[in-house]
């Protein structure tokens, strides 16, 4: 491409805007000063030590991690069969069903959280964990339907029919032929679902209970009372984890798998 | 009408790979010149230099006597037709054609008249309100042509404009382009890798290879008298014989067979080349000049003729024979290489 200096400059500014705030946090995490300040006065790892000494962060991480995995697995369990049924044949009202399955995206997260709190926590009096799990299931389901659905659209179903003619039963054919061929879609769906569940705030905010907080809500809570670089240190750890995930996705599926 | 001169044009990619190496070309007023060559030979790059998408690292582009090397694309006023047609999908046929005129701040009525005129010429009047998506390949091609011609360009540049059409349409469009070009008298550069298309449409042909022009001449010249081995191979000479000069118009092959060659270039060591169609099968007792004995290895049916792959004392030769007298594999035949048809490269 013939280069355009103005466009390149403009794009650099925008990337600076996207990148610098997070870079600043990363720097402050290693600063000795108790408040966030520039230039940094000295190098320290004590804020990282502080992270591992803060119980709410550790238990929050554990909860968020478990929640993201279990909610995503449940979503895959009910979402993949549905996506398969929808793409396999002309179900009546296919479009309507698909938009119904995607409907949690249309309802704002804050409303989902609020209505679940009212109905599940206050009316049905379900334990906190069940409530959180249901909420996060709703958060991740659309990613599963969308990404697995688009993987199935790419899939050539004559391959599956070929397996049937070779004497493979339908259930067996699904596991032996269809599933391996959409596995990258399922992995991408899992990644996206996991990340979005892990990062969710509005749903978790309503459904957290005494002593049961996800990491983001614990962080949010912490910020309201303390203003020190411990949050920066947590951020650095989470960003490092994100980079690792992105790197793995890039090497296996290509980064494009996360932008669909 | 304009004439175009390319003077010692150099283009490199990343400052390393040379794509054009000191290319020189002169295109006369109103001529249709084709750039012919295999992919990667630099023909499209040459066209893009003329169009202004590539600024050469050195060299000059002159149109008439005006230096154009660094003039921005949009100020050149050259009409361009892309292989993909590049019609604007969000604009109707009429709006596509109007695009260039609108930028020239022309009187509305004048503009409308010109557009209708060119649509008429290109046989598109009834499609004026359609969108590119609703047109067939041939119609799209004509819109692309109309869009390029309506701005009354100084040059018309065509980048493999026919390669996305089916064979029959391609033939029609070829005639159509030639007709329009002659009617408007517009100097035209046509890039193609299809030699038949190229020969039928061009006033002159530049055969390119490895970033230089190997030969520049009329289609007849190139067809009958290729100057280099590359050009010969590219335009269908399949038989090559190593020759050494013995006397004027007399050459000897490596096995000692003597060949009379009418057009003697004076080279001491060279290749003699001849098309499969030009070699004649003669009766087995004919031992006249330029004849040799050959053994049939493979016979292939081509439809209007048979092709024989022969092994001979001067190497493997390919002969096309339309006489219908079949010779089987393993048998021998006598062939004659007419002295008028042997070209030295």
């Amino acid at each position, binding site marked *: 491409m013939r280069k355009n200096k103005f466009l390149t400059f403009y794009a650099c500014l925008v990337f600076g805007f996207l990148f610098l*705030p*997070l870079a600043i946090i990363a720097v402050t995490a290693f600063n000795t000063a108790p408040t966030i300040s520039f230039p940094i006065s000295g190098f320290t790892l004590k804020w990282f030590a502080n992270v591992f000494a803060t119980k709410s962060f550790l238990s929050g991480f554990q909860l968020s991690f478990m929640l993201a995995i279990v909610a995503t697995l449940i979503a895959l369990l009910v979402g993949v069969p549905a996506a398969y049924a*929808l793409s396999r044949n002309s179900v009546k009202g296919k479009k309507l069903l698909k938009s119904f399955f995607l409907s949690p995206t249309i309802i*704002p997260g804050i409303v989902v959280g609020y209505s679940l709190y009212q109905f599940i926590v206050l009316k049905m009096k379900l334990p906190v964990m069940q409530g959180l799990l249901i909420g996060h299931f709703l958060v991740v389901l659309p990613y599963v339907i969308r990404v697995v659905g688009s993987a199935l659209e790419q899939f050539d179903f004559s391959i599956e029919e070929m397996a049937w003619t070779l004497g493979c039963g339908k259930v067996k054919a699904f596991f032996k032929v269809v599933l391996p061929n959409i596995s990258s879609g399922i992995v991408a769906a899992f990644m996206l679902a996991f*990340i979005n569940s892990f*990062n969710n705030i509005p749903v978790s905010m309503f459904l957290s209970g005494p002593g049961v907080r996800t990491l983001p809500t614990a962080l949010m809570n912490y910020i309201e009372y303390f203003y020190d670089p411990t949050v920066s240190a947590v951020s650095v750890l989470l960003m490092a984890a994100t980079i690792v995930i992105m790197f793995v996705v890039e090497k296996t599926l290509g980064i494009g798998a996360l932008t669909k | 009408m304009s004439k175009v001169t390319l003077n010692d044009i150099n283009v490199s990619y990343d400052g390393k790979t040379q794509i054009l190496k000191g290319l020189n070309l002169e295109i006369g007023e109103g001529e249709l010149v084709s750039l012919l060559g295999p992919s990667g030979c630099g023909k499209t790059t040459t066209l893009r230099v003329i169009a202004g998408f590539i600024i050469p690292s050195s060299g000059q582009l002159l149109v008439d006597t005006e230096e154009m090397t660094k003039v921005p694309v949009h100020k050149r006023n050259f009409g361009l037709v892309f292989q993909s047609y590049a019609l*604007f999908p*969000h604009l109707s046929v009429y709006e596509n054609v109007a695009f260039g005129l609108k930028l020239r701040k022309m009187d509305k009525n004048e503009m409308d008249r010109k557009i209708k005129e060119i649509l008429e010429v290109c046989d598109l009047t009834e499609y004026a309100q359609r969108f590119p998506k609703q047109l067939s390949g041939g119609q799209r091609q004509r819109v692309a042509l109309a869009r390029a011609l309506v701005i009354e360009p100084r040059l018309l540049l065509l980048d493999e404009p026919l390669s996305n059409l089916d064979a029959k349409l391609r033939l029609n469009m070829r005639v159509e382009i030639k007709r329009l070009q002659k009617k408007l008298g517009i100097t035209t550069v046509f890039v193609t890798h299809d030699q038949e298309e190229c020969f039928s449409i061009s006033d002159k042909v530049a055969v390119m290879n490895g970033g230089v022009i190997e030969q520049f001449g009329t289609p007849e010249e190139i067809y009958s008298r290729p100057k280099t081995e590359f050009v010969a191979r590219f335009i269908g000479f399949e038989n090559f014989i190593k020759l050494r000069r013995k006397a004027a118009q007399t050459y000897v092959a490596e096995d000692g067979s003597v060949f009379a060659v009418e057009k003697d270039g004076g080279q001491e060591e060279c290749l003699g080349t001849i098309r499969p169609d030009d070699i004649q099968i003669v009766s087995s007792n004919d031992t006249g000049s330029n004849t040799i004995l050959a053994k049939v290895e493979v016979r292939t049916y081509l439809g209007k003729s048979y092709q024989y792959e022969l092994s001979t004392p001067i190497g493997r030769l390919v002969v096309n024979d339309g006489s219908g007298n079949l010779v089987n594999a393993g048998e021998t035949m006598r062939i004659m290489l007419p002295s008028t048809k042997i070209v030295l490269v």
Partner: protein
Amino acid sequence: MKKQSTILLIAPITILLVVVLILPLLAVLLPTVWEGGAVTLSRYLSFFQDPYYIKIFVRTLRIALICTLVCMILGIPTAYFISRVSKKWRGILMSIALFPMLTNSVIRAFAWINILGKNGIVNQILTALHVVDQPLSMLYTEFSVLIGTIYLFLPLMIITLVGVMENIDNDMMEAAESLGASRLLSFVKVILPMSIPGIITGSVLVFTGAMTAYTTPQLLGGPKNMLLSTLIYQRAMTLNDWTGASVVALVMIVTTLIVMKGLNFVADRLDKRGEN
């Protein structure tokens, strides 16, 4: 496939969604339009008559709208830039754009607290340069909410636009230039109209996202700059005003739906490429 097996495959998800999404929503929203055995809109009428609520409603719309416009202005040229660089660079730039999107929104808001706060970087620079004597109060203003929201959704706009723009052939730009349009004009007359579907999709995502985001206004806005989302939380969790919260929730849903449908309608009208 047989009908029975289809039903068997989509039954679990349908039942689950009805039980954990539709039922709770109905349980929350129905009482707001139902009083004494009759349908009533009185609660919504009083919502739109209360200056306090109107102010919050308008502020939410204003922030979402400005955020969408700024994301367009910043995102369109950037996305075009990304779509034109080599494949390798496109991957790298897309990763940089994607990274903030995968980072927790608390962290992203926290970054802006550090930048805009009383002791934040901007104030430190400004006082060091003696541009100001007193630190500026930029945090807990509508401005800080706006910046935080733009920061939140700009990557989404860029990524959506790249998806559309990378499919636009370079020939289009070159054809426009050969017809006499400068590069800027070619961009405006050809690339921009061709990107409209992407711009609309991106705008819908950014606008609805900005309208409903919770973390950013909560952390960067403070109680003075409440938006609909923070209002729901406050009504429900702080004031225990369930009906109030539910009214705001429905207002939010309906507004986002109207904007979504409206923009998609505009997109259909603008996209007149014609069908086959």
